[in-house]
């Protein structure tokens, strides 16, 4: 899954995730904000409702006040009150004297009710006992007054019909005291309250009696007053519930403790509006959830639609921008760097954006130019070195060889004296060594110049061929050496170079054999996950650990040429052969019992090959 780690995948994926997450987050925030907005809208509407309810109540009470002022100015009403108040004792009560006046007062009150001044009017004497009343029933108007028979109070109803009166008076009219009416909130009838305005007298003292004007606060009034989305429930103390057009909402603990609520049905607010002679009317205002849900749903759909439209445009555009300005230049850059790494040092001519990527491309081009210059210098240097190597190996070989030839001629001369012959011997010896060194340098340089032809090689076949060489066969037999070769693996290498390698190693074992031992060489292999390991063990003179590295240096010798022939070339060539195929040769172990060389062959087949 290399492509998962590629920028070509990661960058667009990052954009996709980022833009997608941003849009979803925006949608969530807008939706969340939408709820707050509707909550605020509900709150504002309910606040507006409270204001309108207060206005309605204030206006109604104002009207009641004005109408009460007018009613109390009626002379007959004042006279009646004054008369009644003087004789309002049950035991002294004379119905034939007082009832006509009471009836007149009751009729006046009834007229007032009939012309819409108030829904109900109650007239009390100075002792706050009901004298007369008038009210608007469900289907009729009625009026009545208090009379006494044998000192027992009796309600005389003037205009009662056969219909069930909407007001039922108890036998004992004492509870009809205005204070009781107010305190007990008795002004509710069928869930509809009375607005009550009480006038104690004309001048503000309790000298004559009390006039109570009442008007129904109807649901129709509230309905026309309130905003269309707000519904008002009015608290009905006797039913212990909030009432609205026959619908009752029981009071919960939450209603009692919280002024503001939000549940699945919508937003609720409980308010108490003060009235002149009441403790106030308690309303529960409701902003139903279906109103804001419809709007919320519409807005949410709008937001989602906007998000989708945005996604349809933003995502492809973002994707295209990333591909166009990041991924594509990166791919171009990668292609150019790959091309440079494979030796094509031409500058990248692609058009890169004028940003960091463009700067990077310029830097890569500059690096490529530098590499090109250095490569040119290195090639020139390598050519010079090659020429120098040729000169060394060819031109130096000629004089050394001629020294050998002429020293031989001197050695063969009959006229040569003993000391001259000895000098000729030394000249021949040194020229021979010089010739060997120059020839070794030539072989080493030739090996360096030749790229290996890497292919699978059967090591056993290579070694068999080496050991079957007549010259090698002769050298082995000369020292009676025993050579044991185990089954070896196939390796990636140059078969010709490996032949040279094993020739060098076997020669090395034979050359540095122990003088008191029969030479024995053993070759075997081991394998690990990364490399093939081939061991070559001999029972020669061995070498000290501190000389292990020196043994592989070019012309490095650990012994004098007086004791052992050789110029110190074999192991350095062996290391060069192994390193050409990404392998190596090391001394695995060495001591008085001999030496074990370890050949490490890479299993990687991706070598630079001369094939």
């Amino acid at each position, binding site marked *: 899954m290399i492509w998962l780690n590629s920028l070509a995948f990661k960058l667009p994926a990052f954009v996709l995730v980022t833009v997608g997450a941003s849009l979803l987050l925006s949608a969530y925030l807008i939706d969340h904000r939408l709820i707050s907005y509707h909550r605020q809208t509900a709150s504002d509407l309910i606040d507006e409702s409270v204001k309108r309810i207060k206005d309605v109540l204030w206006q109604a009470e104002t009207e009641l006040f004005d109408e009460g002022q007018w009613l109390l100015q009626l002379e007959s009403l004042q006279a009646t009150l004054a008369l009644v108040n003087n004789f309002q004792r049950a035991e002294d009560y004379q119905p034939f004297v007082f009832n006509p006046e009471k009836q007149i007062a009751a009729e006046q009150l009834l007229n007032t009710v009939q012309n819409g001044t108030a829904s109900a009017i109650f007239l009390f004497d100075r002792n706050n006992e009901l004298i007369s009343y008038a009210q608007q029933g469900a289907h009729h108007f009625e009026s009545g007054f208090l009379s006494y028979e044998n000192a027992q109070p009796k309600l005389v109803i003037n205009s009662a019909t056969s219909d069930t009166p909407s007001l039922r008076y108890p036998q004992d009219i004492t509870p009809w005291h205005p204070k009781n009416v107010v305190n007990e909130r008795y002004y509710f009838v069928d869930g509809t309250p009375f607005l009550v305005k009480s006038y104690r007298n004309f001048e503000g003292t309790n000298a004559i009696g009390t006039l109570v004007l009442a008007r129904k606060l109807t649901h129709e009034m509230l309905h026309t007053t309130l905003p269309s989305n707000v519904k008002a429930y009015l608290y009905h103390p006797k039913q212990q519930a909030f009432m609205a057009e026959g619908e009752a909402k029981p009071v919960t603990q939450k209603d009692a403790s919280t002024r503001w609520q939000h549940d699945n049905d919508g937003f609720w607010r409980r308010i108490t509006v003060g009235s002149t002679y009441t403790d106030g009317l308690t309303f529960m205002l409701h902003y139903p959830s279906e109103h804001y849900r419809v709007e919320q749903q519409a807005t949410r759909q709008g937001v989602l639609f906007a998000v989708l439209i945005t996604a349809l445009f933003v995502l492809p555009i973002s994707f295209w921008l990333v591909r166009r300005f990041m991924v594509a230049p990166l791919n171009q850059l990668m292609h150019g760097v790959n091309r440079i790494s494979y030796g094509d040092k031409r500058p990248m001519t692609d058009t890169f954006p004028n940003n960091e990527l463009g700067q990077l491309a310029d830097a890569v081009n500059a690096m490529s130019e530098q590499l090109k210059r250095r490569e040119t210098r290195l090639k020139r240097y390598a050519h010079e070195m090659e020429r120098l190597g040729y000169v060394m190996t*060819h031109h130096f070989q*000629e004089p050394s060889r001629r020294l050998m030839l002429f020293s031989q*001629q001197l050695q063969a001369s009959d006229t040569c004296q003993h000391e001259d012959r000895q000098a000729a011997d030394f000249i021949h010896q040194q020229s021979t060594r010089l010739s060997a060194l120059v020839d070794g340098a*030539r072989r080493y340089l030739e090996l360096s110049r030749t790229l290996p032809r890497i292919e699978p090689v059967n090591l056993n076949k290579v070694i068999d061929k080496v050991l079957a060489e007549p010259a090698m066969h002769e050298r082995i037999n000369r020292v009676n050496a025993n050579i044991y070769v185990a089954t070896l693996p196939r390796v990636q290498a140059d078969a010709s170079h490996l032949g040279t390698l094993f020739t060098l190693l076997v020669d090395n074992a034979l050359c540095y054999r122990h003088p008191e031992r029969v030479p024995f060489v053993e070759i075997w292999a081991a394998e690990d996950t990364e490399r093939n390991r081939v061991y070559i063990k001999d029972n020669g003179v061995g070498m000290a650990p501190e000389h292990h590295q020196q043994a592989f240096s070019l012309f490095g010798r650990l012994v004098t040429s007086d004791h052992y022939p050789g110029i110190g070339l074999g192991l350095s060539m062996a290391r060069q052969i192994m390193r050409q195929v990404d392998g190596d040769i090391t001394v695995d172990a060495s001591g008085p019992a001999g030496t074990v060389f370890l050949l490490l062959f890479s299993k990687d087949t991706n070598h630079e090959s001369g094939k």
Partner: protein
Amino acid sequence: MSQANSVLLVEDDQADAYITQKVFRDIAEDIALSHTETGESALEWLATRQKEGTLPDLILLDLNMPRMDGFTFLEQAKGQERLRSIPVVVLTTSASQGDVDRAYALGAAGYVVKPSSIDDFTHYMQRLVGYWFSLVKRPD
């Protein structure tokens, strides 16, 4: 061996020319060994001998020579119709495989690395002369 056999040695180094001439005197008195020191002089010498109708039967050619080296000489000699049939054996110090391959590619008939001992040199020359003047038939 016929008295008519002749060899041209193209060798710039006086020491190698001396050794070669000495060995030839020892092993083949009947072979006329001529010597030129450069490639140019060898071509001139061959041109003269061509007019006289006495071209050599074999050319021993050193590679490393001033101005015109052995390869150039070989290339030019093999470019001439009459000289093309004369076998050229490279006699050089270089054991480079590159030089060997190039020499054969240019038409050399043999490639001998000069040995480091007089005995070996003598032995090589004996075999060389025996091969070219006794064993094989050469073009007319």
